[in-house]
């Protein structure tokens, strides 16, 4: 796949360092996430994947290095701050409230209110929220039987899709995903990958943490391998094999 990147990356990390006490988890991670592309981060356990993602989601503040959005240096002070800047995260545990409806989950904390004095009292516009939620999910290729039903009643794949849809709905800049298909069967996995692909097509920079290397080779536009808190390698998926990637993850590429 040939890519023409004329603009600066939507999200750029330059030498990000993060320590927990004396433990150096990130020792200089540099990478760029581009709009419309899916970037996968691979790495062995403890390589720093999740920590790096939490730096981008605003949960951790880096101890060194620089973040840039569209070329502008920025600091993320909280998850809320990152969300305000258009960065949405799909957590491994999804962070859905199982008793709330699909629409309520998609809008949780950002509910639509009715016009007029009822709205100023915080009265929500359920009809609009449901219609909009249906549209967002359909645009990702997902049709649910009910948008009023609790998310508890959905299948694992559908719940995952709702979490992705929520991120797509609110993300203006980037979408971060931690192991979005770890707990799913093959069919549901395909459904979620489909949704991730359509998210990228909506001009978002997508970051994906996954262990499923063959799937990542098919899905991602760029692969970045982390090892011991460093950016160890960058690949274009069409030009590498699973073997190359595994070697980079384990640090055996150069010795071969």
């Amino acid at each position, binding site marked *: 796949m040939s890519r023409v990147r004329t603009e600066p990356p939507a999200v750029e990390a330059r030498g990000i360092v993060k320590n927990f006490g004396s433990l150096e988890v990130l020792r200089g991670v540099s990478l760029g996430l581009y709009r419309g592309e899916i970037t996968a981060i691979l790495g062995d356990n403890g390589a720093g994947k999740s920590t790096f993602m939490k730096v981008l989601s605003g949960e951790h503040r880096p101890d060194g290095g620089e973040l840039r959005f569209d070329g502008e240096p920025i600091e993320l002070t909280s998850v809320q701050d990152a969300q305000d800047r258009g960065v949405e995260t799909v957590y491994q545990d999804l962070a859905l409230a199982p008793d709330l409806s699909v629409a309520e989950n998609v809008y949780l904390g950002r509910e639509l209110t009715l016009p007029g004095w009822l709205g100023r009292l915080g009265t929500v516009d359920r009809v609009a929220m449901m219609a909009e939620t249906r549209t967002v999910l359909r645009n990702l290729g997902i049709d649910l039987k*009910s948008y009023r039903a609790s998310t508890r009643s959905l299948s694992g794949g559908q719940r995952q899709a709702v979490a992705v849809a929520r991120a797509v709905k609110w993300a203006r800049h980037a979408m971060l995903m931690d192991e979005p298909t770890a707990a799913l069967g093959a069919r549901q996995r395909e459904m979620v990958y489909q949704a991730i692909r359509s998210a990228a097509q909506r001009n978002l920079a997508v970051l994906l943490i996954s262990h499923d290397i063959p799937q990542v080779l098919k899905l991602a536009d760029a692969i970045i391998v982390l090892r011991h808190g460093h950016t160890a390698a960058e690949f274009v998926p069409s030009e590498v094999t699973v073997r190359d990637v595994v070697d980079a993850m384990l640090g055996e590429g150069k010795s071969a």
Partner: protein
Amino acid sequence: MSTGSETTAGQTQGPDAMGFAARARQTTAFWIFLCLLVIVGVFGVISPNHVFFSLSNLFTIALNAAELMLLTVGMTYLLGAGQLDLSIGANLTLSSVLAAMTIVSFAGTLDEVAAGDYPNLGWAVVAGTAVAVVTGTLFGVINGILVTRLRLSSFLVTLATTGIGLGTTLVITHGANIPNLPRSLQTGFAVNRVFGVVPMPVILSLLVAAVFWFVLARTRFGIHTLAIGSSPEAASRAGIATGRHLIVLFGLMGMLTGLAAMVDISRFATTNIGGHQTDNLQAIAATVIGGTSLFGGVASIPGAVIGTLVPVVLSTGLVIMRVDSFYQLIVVGIIIILAVYIDQRNRQSLK
């Protein structure tokens, strides 16, 4: 673009276009309401001269339920948010004692009050009501602060504040009730029937229930309450200030307890220090009977109203039938088990 599932638009309309009746049938409150109708029907048919069906009897039942209804409405919010308040009985006692003392001391001099003369009645009642509501709210807010700031379970915190509240009440009163409350509290409010039929406390409780229903079912505040009960992590990741929200909920529970305290002393023209030991369990039982989940995330105010009526209808009916009203306790116990069972089964069928 290919799609993951091939459901057609027509099919997807189905469940969301479902009518009100169809959706109601899925709620515990609906089934308990049917139970209630059956119980009322049975008592009505077999009571002598069908006196049970008389409007005056039905509103007497409502009056007997009015005080508990205020507590149940607050408990519905707390259980819905995954919390619990065991201290409402102690809070009610303390609030009613302080309110009664305020009324008695504001209404006139000691001699005047002892003689049943209350020159400053109006202001005394206003001040007493304010004291009841403020005391109740503060009690609740303290519960909320202890639960959220010290990260203690609400079960333990409110068990502890039950003792603190009761102890404080006994220290203040030396264990004696506050007598000599003006009878006009009864005639003007508690047993005063609007249009000669509807007791005023019933109107108060139903108004409160209506407002709290609207807030729970239709507003962001309601959604956030249930979100916290369903998954505190999801709620806080969605930017909801869960700690502050819970303190407000405990405060509202306390405010409603203060209102209930006013209704209590108005009805009986005296405080009732020993009479509220089981208010907490009654309110929790009524809440659960109405379909609110003990595990949080699901709550129903209409259910709470119905759940409050069930025990009162039973005890009134049994009295009219000249059956020992102690049987009421047994029947209510069975209904609680039934309600929790229905709730559990509904949840499992969703899995």
